[in-house]
């Protein structure tokens, strides 16, 4: 017999859908079916059932092969590596729960680590912009219930956040938006003709790397001032038209992604986008929101916020927290040889960092904590597989609008596997012994 678990939270992207239904076997050992999830989310649940899943820690041998080790040995290696290092990098923290992030932070404090999360190659620039200019934002339910002007800038939710449009932004019928899609105007700014752009009322096919110019042009257009004939590849008439569309709405929302945060201009693009939103509040109501990627990257910024006061790139190596993106960010540290050990949890820098950084990880003492085999586990000295957060263990995660939701356990992890939090708790205890604190 089987049973169905409802209201399951999807631990994949920052959309953090919480309406999944998962069918599991009566003994909680097998996960059989996933309903309501997008293709990526469903795959994440089903992947936990892979027959070839690694269930015990392993250590790389001199000949390059893996040798299975016990969790105790993995704890000892990790604790010793961190305690012996002068300045270890503890990176990732975006695909795990806040409980693990909290224990990890205490380890970082005890060993003087640099704590960094995936924002460092993603929305870190947005976080810097927010420190410059602030951020008028809202929860996704405000968008659903009120927004009639939806602007996607440099993001493609049709592929990256597949249920975003149906749950929150384009299609849902909310309290003041009873006609759903028909009550909204959708604008997409993207150099590519994406699937999201294909359902937009207006697609501004901007020249690549000209986001700052176009954002600035919108601010000019709001004020009815003069524009050059073409800005960023867009004719001025179109810009005036879009400006008017935004101003005439009752509630405008801008969603933005990596297309603006990591293209030329970086945080300055976001400064300008937030300034556009501020300006719009002179005429109507407007908000802006980063499309956060990992399901709990937002949470790691929150946990470090209340423990240390900074959302990412937190250097604890001097005994107090310092924050200086460009200096205390992972890639800068790796490429300048400023860290002497690497600990990765809940992320895959092997797949997403520049090759020059990945080579440094390969050369250093390194541990990867990850339920999957990834490019990162391939370059690390020790791989510690753990239970899937949100599938085999619950815990808190923060949605892209900072709303915290408690993820659920739906199925048992394979016999004898540790969770992130359990593993870290053991490492912390051992680190404290080694450090004599």
């Amino acid at each position: 017999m089987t049973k169905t678990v409802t209201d399951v939270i999807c631990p994949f992207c920052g959309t953090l859908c919480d309406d999944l239904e998962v069918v599991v076997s009566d003994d909680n050992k097998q996960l059989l079916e996933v309903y309501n999830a997008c293709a990526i989310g469903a795959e994440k649940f089903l992947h936990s059932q892979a027959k070839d899943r690694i269930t015990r820690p392993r250590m790389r041998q001199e000949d390059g092969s893996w040798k299975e080790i016990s969790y105790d040995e993995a704890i000892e290696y990790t604790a010793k590596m961190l305690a012996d290092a002068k300045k270890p990098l503890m990176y990732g923290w975006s695909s795990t729960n806040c409980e693990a992030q909290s224990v990890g932070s205490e380890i970082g404090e005890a060993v003087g680590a640099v704590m960094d999360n995936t924002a460092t190659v993603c929305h870190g620039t947005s976080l810097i912009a927010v420190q410059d200019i602030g951020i008028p934002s809202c929860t996704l339910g405000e968008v659903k219930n009120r927004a009639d002007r939806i602007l996607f800038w440099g993001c493609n939710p049709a592929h990256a956040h597949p249920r975003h449009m149906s749950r929150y932004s384009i299609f849902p019928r909310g309290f003041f938006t009873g006609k759903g899609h028909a009550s909204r105007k959708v604008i997409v700014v993207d150099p590519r003709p994406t699937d999201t752009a294909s359902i937009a009322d207006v697609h501004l096919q901007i020249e690549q790397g000209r986001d700052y110019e176009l954002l600035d042009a919108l601010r000019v257009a709001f004020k009815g001032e003069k524009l050059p004939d073409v800005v960023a590849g867009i004719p001025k008439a179109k810009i005036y038209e879009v400006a008017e569309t935004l101003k005439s709405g009752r509630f405008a929302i801008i969603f933005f992604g990596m297309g603006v945060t990591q293209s030329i201009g970086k945080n300055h693009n976001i400064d300008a986008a937030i300034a556009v939103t501020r300006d719009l509040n002179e005429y109507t109501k407007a908000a802006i929101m980063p499309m956060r990627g990992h399901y709990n990257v937002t949470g790691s910024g929150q946990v470090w916020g209340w423990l240390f006061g900074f959302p990412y790139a937190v250097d604890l190596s001097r005994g107090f927290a310092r924050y200086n993106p460009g200096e205390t960010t992972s890639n800068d540290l790796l490429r300048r040889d400023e860290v002497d050990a690497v600990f990765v949890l809940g992320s895959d820098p092997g797949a997403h960092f520049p090759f020059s950084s990945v080579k440094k990880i390969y050369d250093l003492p390194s541990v990867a904590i990850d339920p999957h085999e990834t490019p990162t586990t391939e370059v690390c000295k020790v791989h510690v597989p753990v239970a899937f957060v949100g599938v085999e263990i619950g815990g808190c995660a923060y949605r892209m609008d900072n709303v915290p939701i408690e993820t659920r356990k739906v199925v048992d992890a394979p016999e004898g596997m540790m969770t992130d939090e359990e593993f870290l708790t053991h490492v912390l205890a051992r680190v404290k012994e080694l450090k004599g604190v």
Partner: protein
Amino acid sequence: MAEFLIKNGFVFDPVLGIKGDKADIAIKDGKIVETTALSSPKIIDASGKTVMAGGVDVHAHVAGPKVNIGRNFRPEDKLFTYKPGHGIERMQGGFSVPTTLRTGYNYARMGYTTVMEAAMPPLYARHTHEEMRDTPILDQGAYPVFGNNWFVLEYLKNHEIENTAAYIAWLLRATKGYAVKVVNPGGTEAWGWGLNCDNVHDPVPYFDITPAQIVKGLIEANEYLGLPHSMHVHANNLGNPGNYTTTLDTFKLSEGIKPNSKFGRDQVMHHTHVQFHSYGGDSWANVESRAKDIMAYVNSHDNLTIDMGQVTLDETTTMTADGPFEHHLTELNHLKWANADVELETGSGVVPYVYSPNIKVCAIQWCIGLELALLAKDPMRVFMTTDHPNAGPFIRYPRIMKWLMSEEARKQQFDAFKHKDKVIEATNLAGIDRELDLYEIAQMTRAGPAKSLGLSHMYGGLAPGLEGDVAVFDFNPNEPYAPDAIETAFSNAECLFKAGVQVIDDHEIVSNGNKRTLWVNTKVNENPQVMRDVKEKFLRYYTVTLNNYEVSGHYLPNPYVIEVDATQ
């Protein structure tokens, strides 16, 4: 558990009525006991020192989403303020929005043991509880906000008190909340469209209910349930010249309503940070103090308590669920602005602010806050706060004590104002020579707020049976002292006991205590209509499901549940 005997201190305790006489205070099993109940206590020699109960803060923004926005978007707030870990203390930083660890340690250093988080957006309750869990030492509770909640607006439009009460009971349980908080009633919902409600009769767009109906209805629902604390309001029109009339209009909504609570409070309305609500004039050019009018009303109406919201003349971070106000403020000072509207429930904004002694308006605000306290006839109903961090960081409480206790200190501050004469002209403070004593301070910071919160059976005094929360300060009230000595001594408690655990010994933090989270569990008669409405709203308008909304137990590792039975 350990036993302690705090001997020969000068005790100030409004509960026992001790006004600085020498007395011994005994602690056993976490509680205050008669000295005869001890067998072999550790002796604390407090001769020549001041002994009080642990402080109780009725209103501070110390945990939750907007506080964390403040931390994360102000790296500059950490500049020059970071302290490495030391002994059992972990690393800590931040000035106006300190990290949770520093919040706990710094309150303890001032002899405070109970702090209420003043505004919890229900959808973000988990976040608030996570931060409170990571705030050491202090007993805490959080007030969910109700004044712009769609359920409340819909029920109170038709004056459905019983339904409102049932919803309040449900939400307090779901969010593990402590009291009914109201922030800019109706105005924050209007801010969903970029609008506001400027006075108590300004109707809320679409919902077609006035702020007056919301406030009065929530007072009635609060008394229907008999909750420990009264309805706790931040009125409309905060921070605007001439707003004292709106404040008086709001006060008047409590008239004729009697408290119905078994928890010993006498008020039905607590109005918070009244300094921000006591302005006369009609522009920033002629803004003036109306503290006299405000206090004339407060002094003559027993069913009302207030707190100060004292401006401390620092650079700080303002944060409030009053979304439209923060937008107004960023237009005024052009500093960065964060806003966070919350579906169906509330909103909030965060803007840094510099209260400069060189700016006339800031100096006038400073005067108004002190006037409220110095014009108070009953210090049991007027509490010391800074609306942390809105008017200034809580670490300035000892400085406010200095200003309240010393006319000389106030004179020194007047002399430091750039526009001293204009400030004196626009305010009453220069003509007030009252100096509060430590007994009155203990009323304003301990016994008063504890009573207002419905927690006088636990906190605020040194009577046997109360929690073993006791602070010893290196301050001899019977010897001559310079005003600054007050600030020094009360910033740095010599000893602190929290629920019978010694947290500070010889000015050093030696324990993280046994932190508890207080929440109110109210039993009400089954109300199928409200439960149907809840299901419907979650199905159609919320973006989380009903089953994922309630805060589960593990967010409160050490809960203290106050049970209320409203089924009768």
